[in-house]
């Protein structure tokens, strides 16, 4: 057999049928669903008289519209309540395990899959949510799908897919202190652009990627979709196996060893061919801040807001001009001179325990700037929340003037009442700075958790490397 990439290996292992000129039928190991994109799929299934083929491989959670305040109060938003009730009813009728909003394991779908050990190396994983790519950090093929595809997977446990092209993103060297996984992925997107990954599956390689924890790898893979790729992956290694051992759905004892031996084979063979390769020097990546209305509009913390005239392409010039107008920013403004009104630490990109620990180091013993109207810390799951509280992180956040909330998607998408008001500017650890993403008219700057924390204290963006705080 010719040398294969990690992507090829997972793909080949899951082909159910392959006919020339047709998309493959690909088997799906794990199907995660949430309240936002599943009701129409269940309705379609029901109206066609079809059943859920593998409820045991399907896991549901409430995350997008859940309140991050008090869940014992009634849900006042009738539409959100309707979706919660529909999900609960659909799961009850079909035998799908639901982590409802009161479950101890509730959290953002892309956080709890890995946390429970449902996500494993070599798996195919899908969810009606584009940030399913997060799960690729384990060396799985994980990607977002539309609602029609959700219905297709419910009915058949398969998807019809054409093979994507593997693309390698090699980040060499060692990250500087204060430069996080978030800065790495933003720097990658800044370099290759938001459409470079279309039709491709990204594999992140190199010493700077190997040096990341599982939390960091999840942050990187999470934003593969922001580079246009449906999936991103990192080959599993000792870091992966150590993270997995002992989690509720991971095999134990001898079975674990058997699994690890299989997982060790999930690496790209020497000499395997990628459709594209990109290299970045990890030593040179600085903390990143977005200034525009897509994640590719990003620069170093030491940089300035660019002028539309500095872009050669007419389409880019036009979209930069429109982005600066929306963001109310003038070309030439130093990033560190941009004030912030809101700070949001959360989302499937950056709400894991490591993110909260790092942010807490920046704010410990300090106070949120008086000009900052709201600083939110939203753990990605209730397990993360409980762990953070056991370490006293909630106290550090509260004492600094942050609100410490319950788990959910929250202000990344603003489907509950955590909404960024129009005209206000937010330092956000989420993944999308699209117009209106966090709230109509809201202005989003994507940053790492420590850069967000530092902005909360200073009231504007600052270079965390110059704070004199011991950083990893």
């Amino acid at each position, binding site marked *: 057999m010719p040398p294969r990439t990690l992507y090829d290996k997972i793909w080949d292992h899951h082909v159910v049928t392959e006919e020339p*000129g047709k998309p493959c039928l690909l088997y799906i190991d794990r199907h995660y669903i949430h309240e936002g994109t599943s009701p129409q799929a269940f309705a379609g299934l029901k109206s066609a008289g079809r059943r859920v083929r593998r409820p045991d491989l399907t896991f549901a959670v409430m995350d997008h519209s859940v309140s991050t305040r008090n869940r014992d109060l009634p849900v006042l938003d009738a539409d959100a309540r309707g979706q919660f009730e529909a999900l609960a009813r659909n799961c009850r009728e079909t035998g799908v395990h639901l982590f409802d909003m009161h479950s*101890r394991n509730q959290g953002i779908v892309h956080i709890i899959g890995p946390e429970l050990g449902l996500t494993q190396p070599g798996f195919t994983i899908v969810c*009606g949510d584009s940030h399913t790519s997060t799960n690729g950090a384990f060396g799985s093929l994980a990607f977002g799908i539309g609602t029609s595809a959700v219905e297709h997977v419910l009915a058949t446990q398969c998807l019809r897919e054409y093979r994507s092209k593997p693309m390698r993103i090699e980040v060499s060297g060692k990250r500087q202190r204060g430069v996080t996984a978030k800065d790495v992925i933003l720097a990658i997107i800044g370099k290759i652009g938001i459409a470079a990954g279309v039709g491709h599956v990204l594999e992140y390689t190199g010493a700077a990627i190997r040096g990341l924890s599982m939390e960091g790898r999840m942050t990187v893979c999470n934003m593969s979709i922001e580079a246009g790729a449906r999936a991103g992956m990192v080959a599993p290694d000792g870091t992966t196996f150590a993270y997995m051992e002992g989690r509720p759905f991971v095999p134990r004892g001898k079975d674990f060893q058997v699994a690890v031996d299989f997982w060790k084979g999930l690496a790209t063979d020497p000499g395997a061919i990628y459709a594209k390769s990109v290299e970045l020097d990890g030593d040179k990546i600085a903390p990143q801040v977005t200034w525009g209305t897509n994640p590719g509009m990003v620069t170093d913390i030491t940089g300035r807001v660019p002028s539309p005239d500095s872009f050669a392409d007419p389409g880019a010039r036009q979209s930069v001009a429109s982005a600066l107008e929306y963001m109310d920013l003038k070309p030439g403004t130093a990033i560190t001179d941009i004030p912030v009104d809101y700070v949001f630490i959360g989302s499937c990109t950056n709400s894991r325990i490591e993110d909260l620990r790092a942010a807490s180091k920046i704010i410990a013993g300090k106070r949120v700037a008086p000009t900052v109207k709201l600083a939110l810390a939203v753990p990605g799951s209730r397990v993360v929340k409980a762990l953070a509280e056991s370490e006293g992180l909630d106290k550090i956040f509260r004492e600094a003037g942050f609100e410490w909330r319950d788990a959910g998607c929250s202000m990344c998408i603003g489907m509950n009442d955590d909404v960024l008001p129009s005209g206000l500017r937010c330092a956000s650890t989420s993944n999308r700075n699209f117009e209106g993403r966090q709230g109509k008219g809201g202005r989003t700057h994507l940053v790492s958790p420590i850069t967000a924390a530092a902005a909360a204290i200073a009231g504007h963006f600052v270079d965390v490397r110059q704070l004199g705080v011991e950083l990893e």
Partner: protein
Amino acid sequence: MQPFTRHSGLVLPFDRVDVDTDQMVPKQFLKSQTKEGYGRILFYDWRYLPGEKPNPDFILNEPRYQGASILLTRRNFGCGSSREHAAWAVADYGFRAVIGPSFADIFFKNCAMNGILAITLPEEQVDELFRRAQSTPGYQVHVDLPNQTIRDDKDLELKFEIDDFRKQALLKGLDEIGLTLEHDSDISAYERAHHPEPTQQSPVDFSYPVAS
């Protein structure tokens, strides 16, 4: 699914790169449980002023583009969120075909699942279509899926590529799930060989070993 064979219609040139699905259907409209009625929502925040008054500066509200059924786009159209609501909105508004130099992968697939023909053409050909649509009031094109051509009433004739599976599915309005269910025995064979079922080792929902 509504089949697509041939369609002639007014072209709406949407002259903006990297249009994301958050703009097509903003999040406040993602809490519905139906696939219907999203046409009114399409590009909501750009299209309406407060009180849902049409924004006269937005292209969908321009009188010359009323009744448009072919959406001409720039590169990377439909990027971002996987929300199929974006495709439902495009279809419900009345667009039958979307033509552009490139589309985001998930949006492209969502179009196919909803009877919308998404056509990828080289950038120069898209530029030419933009020039014609912007300079000719009432500019129409004729999209012919069986022959894979786009023509206008002057001299333009373009060929486009489409994979045969998607073409047949669109032409016949096929139910993809029904097709896959014909492979039930293949799927069962895969399951017997690979045992994908999860093994739960410790309880969830009410207790969890807190790792450090």
